[in-house]
């Protein structure tokens, strides 16, 4: 009885060592009697020391990285890099339809300042490349004059009495020329058709 009481007292004074579950040979120190040093973690000192070492190192590493990136970017020949890129292969992988579907063209155009854009465009080289003669050739002037007010403009600007009289005289003369020519051909009956115009003028007419 006395022996059991002493064992209990010693057990309180000297508790058995607690062993770690993962490392059974490691003995975890028992908590001491609670006191004023409870809030001080002895590892904090080590952490503080390591922070003082790692923070400048991290800054140094960042600066070194930025410097290296600058050097690499400066050393890069972007043109050569772009030349190596196979744009066709790149573009073939782009789904343009899907891209365009997502594009709000109206919103895009709203943001475009056409006046500023046109002010920057040099229209002369563009117009130099336009074949105006070809465009004019495609215009049906007769239909244009008949259907628009252009006829009135022409009539008021050029339709003087003199021009009307000249037109009438020339038209009449040409009509009589053709009338006489028809009768002459009926009489002499040429074996081959006569040329209508000199060769150079026929070629010019064909080209126009």
């Amino acid at each position, binding site marked *: 009885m006395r022996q059991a009481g002493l064992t209990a007292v010693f057990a309180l004074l000297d508790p058995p060592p607690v062993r770690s579950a993962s490392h059974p040979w490691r003995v975890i120190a028992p908590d001491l009697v609670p006191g004023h040093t409870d809030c001080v973690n002895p590892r904090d000192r080590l952490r503080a020391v390591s922070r003082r070492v790692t923070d400048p190192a991290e800054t140094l590493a960042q600066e070194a990285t930025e410097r290296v990136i600058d050097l690499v970017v400066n050393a890069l020949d972007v043109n050569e890099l772009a030349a190596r890129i196979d744009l066709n292969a790149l573009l073939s992988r782009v789904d343009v339809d899907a891209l365009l579907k997502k594009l709000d063209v109206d919103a895009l155009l709203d943001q475009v300042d056409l006046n500023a854009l046109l002010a920057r465009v040099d229209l002369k080289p563009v117009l130099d490349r336009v074949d105006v003669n070809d465009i004019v050739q495609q215009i049906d002037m*007769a239909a244009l004059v*008949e259907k628009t007010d252009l*006829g009135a403009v*022409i009539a008021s600007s*050029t339709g003087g009495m003199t021009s009307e009289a000249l*037109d009438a005289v020339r038209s009449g003369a040409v009509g009589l020329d053709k009338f006489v020519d028809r009768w002459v051909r009926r009489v002499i009956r040429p074996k081959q058709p006569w*040329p*209508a115009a000199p060769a150079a003028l026929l070629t010019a007419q064909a080209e126009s």
Partner: protein
Amino acid sequence: MSTPARQDALVSYQGHYAGAVSRFAAYSIDLVVSTAVFALALAAISWGVRIITGHDVSWNRSNIVVAVIFVIWQFVYFGYCWAVSGRTPGMAMLGIRVVRADGTILPPKQAILRSLVFPLSFLLFGLGFIGILVQHEHRALHDLIAGSAVVYSWDARAAHLRFLARQAELAEADITSG
């Protein structure tokens, strides 16, 4: 008034060989113009002589000097006009011009040659002009010698547009009044 179809046909005649009527009408106008200018020039000379010397100068048709000057004037009138522009005032009115046989612009030398050989066509009662009717390129004797031809050159397209414009204007006036 010409019809639109007729006007379209006229447009296509531009550059074609001119016929006898147009050429004869042009020559008639030129003859009137050149004679009038010659007469005005003689009148001006007479007036000048009278002002300066006080003597009246009368020009007689039978005067050989006047006849020679008139012939020279005719050469100058036609030769100069053909060499400079390929057309005389009468030809300009009728819308015809002289070109080389191949259709290119007539050089001054050929124009002068044409004016020099032009009288040959009047010989033998004007038989030289028969070529205008029966030759396949409507070339007279002086054309064959000088290597020239006469073609229509008036701006038939502009005339056609003027015609259409007048038609449109008349139609609009009809609509407005009706």
